[in-house]
């Protein structure tokens, strides 16, 4: 049994803080009761209340003063509500703040539109200097959190709600492409992004075992440029699966980085979800499910 992304973040940060006095944890009233960092390191835990933009700007002050602040709030509030703080503090200032953003994509499901975030890659990828990661599973999340502490660079880390995922066997988050299956050079290559994107690619591989599959954990421009070199050396036709809008997403970015390759994107499209249902039901309603991935594979195979 793995931990969910946000529980893995909390557990890893709490453990790292045992030996690193610089680490400070901030929440904006969405950390829940019994936060492990608060229990273990109460002097370095601050619930600032419902004040996301202020939390990120304050983290900038803490970072410049020598601390390693980690802030967490739901993805729509971190990226959209506090976008300007993110731009100025993590971008322009380059402060070593890490934002951990659960409820990305439509993992908020029945909670509705205000609790969905399908635009975060588009925003954070447009801010120079950010390290962007969408880890899949507990081990990959823990590795990303460790790297964020070590590097001191500004990070945006995307995760979901409470679902847990098992990281791929080779969960070295630092590699440009984590090849779950290298495949034949002529086969279509699935490129998985994030928790649900990776789950869907693994499900597609169960049906079509010849497909190649490369998983991307880091998604900022520099990491994607490195991944594009590796991907395009190995394959020519790609299906990129991401729980995001088409605009500003990873398929769009790889399309520019790999102009001689064929790329099909599987994403949530342009609709708004205004109905209830669990995560899978909401994704299916938006056209982000296994049939959509298999249809995209068929399109790519016809090229």
């Amino acid at each position, binding site marked *: 049994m793995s931990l969910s992304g946000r529980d893995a973040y909390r557990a890893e940060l709490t453990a790292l803080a045992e030996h690193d006095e610089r680490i400070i944890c901030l*929440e904006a*009233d*969405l*950390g*829940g*009761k019994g936060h492990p960092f608060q229990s273990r390191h109460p002097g370095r835990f601050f*619930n*600032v*209340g*419902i*004040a996301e*933009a*202020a939390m990120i700007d304050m983290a900038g002050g803490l970072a410049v003063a020598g601390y390693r602040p980690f802030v967490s709030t739901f993805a*729509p*509030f971190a990226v959209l*509500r506090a976008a300007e703080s993110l731009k100025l503090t993590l971008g322009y200032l380059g402060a070593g703040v890490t934002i951990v953003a659960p409820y990305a994509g439509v993992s908020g499901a*029945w*909670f*509705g*539109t*205000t*609790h969905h975030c399908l635009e975060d890659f588009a925003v954070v990828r447009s801010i120079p200097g950010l390290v962007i990661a969408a880890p899949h599973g507990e081990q990959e999340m823990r590795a990303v959190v460790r790297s964020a502490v070590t590097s001191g660079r500004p990070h945006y880390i995307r995760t979901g709600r409470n679902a847990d995922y098992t990281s791929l066997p080779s969960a070295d988050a630092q590699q440009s492409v984590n090849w779950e299956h290298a495949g034949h050079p002529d086969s279509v290559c699935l490129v998985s992004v994030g928790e649900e994107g990776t789950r869907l690619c693994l499900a597609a591989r169960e049906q079509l075992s010849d497909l190649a599959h490369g998983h991307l954990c880091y998604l900022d421009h520099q990491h994607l440029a490195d991944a594009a070199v590796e991907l395009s050396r190995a394959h020519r036709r790609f299906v990129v699966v991401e729980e995001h809008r088409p605009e500003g997403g990873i398929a769009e970015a790889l399309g520019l980085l790999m102009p001689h390759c064929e790329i099909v994107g599987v994403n949530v499209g342009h609709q708004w979800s*205004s*109905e*209830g*249902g*669990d995560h899978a*039901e*909401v994704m299916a*309603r938006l056209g982000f499910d296994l049939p959509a991935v298999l249809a995209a594979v068929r399109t790519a195979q016809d090229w």
Partner: protein
Amino acid sequence: MTMTIDTSTQLVRRARLARALVVDMAAGPRGCHLGGSLSVLDILIAAFHRADGDEGSVVVLSKGHAAAGLYAAMYVSGILHEDPVAHYGRAGHPYTGHPSPALPGVAFPTGSLGHGVAYAAGWALARKVAGSDGLGIAIAGDGELQEGLVWEACQIAAAQRLENFVLVVDANGGQNDGLVENISPMPGLAARFSAFGFDTAEVDGHDIPAISAILGHSRVGKGRPLAVIANTVKGKGIPPVEGKAASHYVSIDCARAATWKRMIR
């Protein structure tokens, strides 16, 4: 506006019915934000009564996490015509955990706190510009007041002398992670709003006739927006959860729901 005894009794009866619906939603497959839904119910019933038949007025639940309370209050007030319990949180229905205009009668998507306050102020400004009657009534939580956007909207409302803007604060003392007083206390609320340039009133947020009386007073010629501090109890009406921070989000089974509904007061 003077409320008759019959009307008052009817509204109290509506609130009682609505509480049972909220408990039933907590027993659905998703659970619900029970504590805040029960604290705000009487305010919603009174506000919908004030706006009933008045197309120039809008009621916005800015603390959108109390959606279960909103749907229940809309149903017993005749704004919704289908029982929300069977549809709450389910695929194929617009009864999401935070409300959106996909449901007729909901003006603005709330759940990201503070936005509903500014929207209602904008509605009030529109009525003023058009020279028309009508109130923009926003209902916010006291925890929600930690969000800076609330105070930007209040500053504008005061600066624009929006006498037809009413902000009702459901002061239940709780928020997601605990008590407001422990996380980011905000004492002297009435004085804060007064300093911003608001008229202020304090009321028992479960006294529907008293809330209705405040909302029923004409705002014409006041020259200042109105803040109503409605002192409420999280989980109000269900003794096992009354006043408990843990009632913020609750998922129960049908047997417990039946027990709790028998306890409603």
